[in-house]
């Protein structure tokens, strides 16, 4: 479906992307995950044709669109701040992409209106077509933006931080809804997010980016369980780091076994409930490293000042030269 080869982009002196390669299969739901400045939005905009790469090629459905203007790419784009046309009704917003078609692609007004209504029904905004975007809530606006992007029957749907501007509750509802819509319509979609939870929950595959490079591509479970770089280990999920000879050992707060003969000891200085578990925080004896541990909440809460001895039962070792090994520890 999409094949990116050696995409580079530079803004002035600032290198935004260094040679990105990425393949997306039809029907996939892909998350571009990374902190701000990682180049994820730039990559998305290059796929859309809103920016042009300095070198490399963009293939869409086998066609080289590297130099195709955005208007001719038939790619749906949903902007973080919706970018709705404020002076147009919701229905006119949705029908805009159809109304600008020229020549033999022209569609009669009645047909455009019918299509807009159909799409509004799809995004559950039936009957709001005559409102103006300013009269809708944030979640509703985002759905209008989505309907508008879908109206042109895009071969690819791109979403830039689609839930970034929404309340936590609305965000959660909209996520599930988008997931269902993606499946039901058989779309191929790529969305950008800095929220790892969002990426892990929604995507078929997660592309973790940092400083203009792809750090890891994989299924959410693989990215979480088997991070390939210290960056991914740190950025996706919570990680404790232990210094080791020649590198660092990373383990998640729950990847521990509490045992009186544990090799590590932590002096607990803070305890709170974190969902289904107790979270204990403190400094390691010896190294003084700060660690977070998850303990089953079926047991009594750890006390402040208590020393917990434990062994990481699963961890990853990252060498200073970037190699890593991982798996269950003895």
């Amino acid at each position, binding site marked *: 479906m999409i094949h990116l080869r050696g995409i580079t982009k530079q803004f002035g002196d600032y290198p935004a992307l260094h040679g990105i390669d990425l393949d997306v299969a039809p029907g996939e739901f892909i998350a571009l995950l990374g902190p701000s400045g990682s180049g994820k939005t730039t990559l998305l905009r290059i796929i859309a*044709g*809103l920016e*042009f790469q*300095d070198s490399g090629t963009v293939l869409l459905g086998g066609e080289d669109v590297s*130099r195709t*203007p*955005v*208007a001719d790419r038939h790619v749906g784009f949903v902007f973080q701040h919706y970018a709705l046309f404020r002076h147009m009704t919701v229905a006119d917003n949705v029908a805009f992409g159809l109304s600008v078609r020229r020549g033999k692609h022209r569609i009669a007004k009645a047909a455009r209106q019918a299509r807009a209504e159909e799409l509004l029904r799809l995004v559950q905004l039936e009957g709001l077509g005559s409102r103006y975007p300013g009269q809708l809530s944030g979640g509703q606006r985002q759905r209008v933006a989505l309907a508008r992007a879908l109206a042109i029957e895009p071969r690819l749907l791109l979403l830039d931080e689609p839930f970034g501007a929404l309340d936590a509750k609305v965000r959660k509802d909209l996520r599930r809804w988008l997931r269902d819509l993606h499946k039901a319509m058989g779309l191929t979609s790529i969305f950008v997010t800095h929220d790892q939870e969002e990426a892990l929950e929604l995507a078929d595959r997660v592309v973790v980016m940092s400083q203009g490079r792809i750090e890891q591509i994989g299924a959410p479970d693989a990215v979480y369980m088997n991070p390939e770089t210290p960056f991914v280990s740190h950025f996706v999920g919570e990680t404790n780091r232990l210094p080791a000879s020649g590198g660092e050992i990373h383990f998640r707060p729950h990847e521990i076994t509490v045992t009186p003969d544990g090799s590590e000891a932590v002096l607990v200085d803070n305890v709170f409930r974190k969902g289904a578990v107790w979270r204990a925080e403190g400094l390691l004896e010896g190294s003084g490293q700060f660690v977070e541990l998850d303990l089953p909440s079926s047991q009594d809460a750890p006390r402040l000042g208590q020393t917990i001895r434990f062994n990481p039962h699963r961890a990853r070792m990252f060498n200073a030269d970037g190699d890593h090994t991982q798996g269950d520890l003895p």
Partner: protein
Amino acid sequence: MSQQPTSESPLARAALITVALTFLGFFLLLPLLAVFSEALRQGAGPFLDALHTPDALAAIRLTLIIAAISVPLNMVFGVAASWAITKFQFPGKALLITLIDLPFSVSPVVSGLIFVLLFGANGLFGAWLAEHDLKIIFAVPGIVLATVFITFPFVARELIPLMLEQGKDDEEAAISLGATGWQTFWHVTLPNIRWGLLYGVLLCNARAMGEFGAVSVVSGHIRGETNTMPLHVEILYNEYDFVGAFAVASLLALLALVTLVAKTVLEWRFGLHAGARH
């Protein structure tokens, strides 16, 4: 490198910039240059001589006096009005703002006329004033009144949006820490708004010194007595003393340039912006 989707082609861009600059050149820059060129047409000597006549000096003095009276009056009013409007909630606020803006939508000539109708020889208070040997129209008080009316909204207009944006958290904090109302105003509010205030005063002053229509109606054009600089320009011009007229005009143009520079600096440095209606 392909073109960005939301920018014009270099050709369109160059064409637009050319059209804009040509238009501005013809309509704004050339008139400005013409003032100085005409003033110095016969060299620096006649230019300076024209400024040194007793009538010209009297006009300059009167203009400064008028500004020195009307600008502070409107400054105090502007601060008081902005305080009432931005720090309190009361019904009718929108109407009050509209009324403050009213002088902007009245023709300068009409602004002069209303004071003639009030205080002129045949005006509402004309007989009473004559009885008490008081003169407002064709005298300095009339010019001050007309100028205050014309420049009425300037300071308030700049301060209201600024103070609305700043909110009243700072003042409430000061009061909660035990400051009195005046202490709060002097030590909290005034430092917050001083650049905006200066900005408004600057625009107010430019208009006060340059006002022509309103002042023309109430002044009576008595040389050396009720002639402000803009009025003096008109008299000299109508007497075909073009060098004299443009010499005085060039002083006013300089004032305008200084105002523009100061305004630009304030905008650039403090992010202030004038509303569109002046």
